[in-house]
């Protein structure tokens, strides 16, 4: 059973309390963007076998969105952080790097990462 600590209300939430929201830090594209940009934003995903930065909503708790760094193979959680941050915290990056040497946070596309309300 996956347990994530909500960075907003501090509750250790069981996965049944949470709603998964897919890959984090996607660059949102709007009117005027090319077809390739829309395709990337809407469909292309890193889908890594290893550390994954992802969105979650504390749906049956405080209701707020947050981000988590989790290993998709071992299910180890490296930490959670507010959705307003554009990158994972240094502590999370350090922990993920210890477990998975060579891993580094690479935003998929240049530009302002999406901040979720």
């Amino acid at each position: 059973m996956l347990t994530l600590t909500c960075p907003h209300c501090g509750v250790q939430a069981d996965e049944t309390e949470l709603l998964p929201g897919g890959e984090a830090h996607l660059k949102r594209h709007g009117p005027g963007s090319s077809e390739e940009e829309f395709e990337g934003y809407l469909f292309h995903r890193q889908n890594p076998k290893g550390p994954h930065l992802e969105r979650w909503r504390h749906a049956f708790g405080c209701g707020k969105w947050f981000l988590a760094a989790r290993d998709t193979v071992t299910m180890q959680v490296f930490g959670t952080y507010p959705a307003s941050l554009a990158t994972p915290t240094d502590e999370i990056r350090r922990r993920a790097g210890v477990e998975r040497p060579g891993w580094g946070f690479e935003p998929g596309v240049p530009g302002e990462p999406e901040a979720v309300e």
Partner: protein
Amino acid sequence: MRRYSVFALAREGLRHHSGWDRAWTSPAPKSRYDVVVVGAGGHGLATAYYLGKNFGIRNVAVIEKGWLGGGNTGRNTTIIRSNYLQDPSAAIYEKSRSLYETLSQELNYNVMFSPRGVMMLAQTQHEVRGYKRTAEANALQGVETEFISPARVKELCPIIHIEGPRYPVLGALWQARGGTARHDAVAWGYARACADMGMDIIEQCEVKGVLTANGKVSGVETSKGAIGCDKLAIVVAGHSSVLAEMGGFRMPIESMPLQALVSEPIKPCMDVVVMANTVHGYMSQSDKGEMVIGGGTDGYNAYTQRGSFHHIEETVRALIETFPIISRLKMLRQWGGIVDMTGDRSPIISRTPLDNCFINCGWGTGGFKAIPGSGWAMAELVAKGEPGPLAASFGLERFREGRFIDESVAAGVAH
């Protein structure tokens, strides 16, 4: 290859079964092949088989990280049906279903195809309308299905509780020619036929990298050394994104665990496949008597082949509501497979940004039924470099162009 027959069985019976050949060998890789297929699951082996059979390309290697058929091919609930709403889906799944009908004879290997009938219960008014629409669409597509009444549902499957408190059965979409098959035997049968054509099936051989030069694939780096190839076919289901990354491109795929479980064996009590998509569970009875149960995927990416416990709970809850008779049944085992989900819940049989590299994936939660048709279409794509009529709609470009084959809306659930 020595053919399996009643005479072979009698002959071997008289000499202590000492003369059977290995169904396939797992040789050391050669330095170069015309085609390298990555992934010796059903789809990969079927691709290799039809490359040899339909196009005469036999200098082929099928390489596999683990053991043959040990991924989703050996982990699914073996349901075969073709009652899809959209034309491209119905075409490829119906091709597949019709190939299953004669697969045992064709491969000279008993895949135990059992066209026992597949029933998709309609438990809301929305589903009634949806399935009636699907039945009409199927009539136009040449797929034999019908919408049946609750009384007929009860007649076909007496253990269904049709007057459930939350979701009474209001009818069902019935495909009499759907059914099940022995999943391992499908992989084994294709593997044996491929080996018979002189193809190499190389197990315990993990791809570590895709070797490219000038926008073309020149080979793959594996745990058993580099293997050169003229064409590369990636048929790895849940690990498609991992292979694509090695090739330097990105896929519209997310990998998630999907679980299944089987009960202790009991006496025969249902001879059809039942899918209850509103409450979300499906069940059939294996020849051994086990109730084979499947449900929905986990909601988030993972490669664990395990899945979350609460999904089993939801599936079992749904099925107990539909089949109260199973409420005291003990479950024997549970397992998970990693399914490759696309945005429109339809598969990808496509060229890739690399010139001579092709990919077949995205079958999500319903790939087993598609194995023969998928292999047929993929072989054509690999052999000709252009998709044939079956694969034409399933290209990667559909995500950029917005030409989705939207089965997620049509089915309402994973399928």
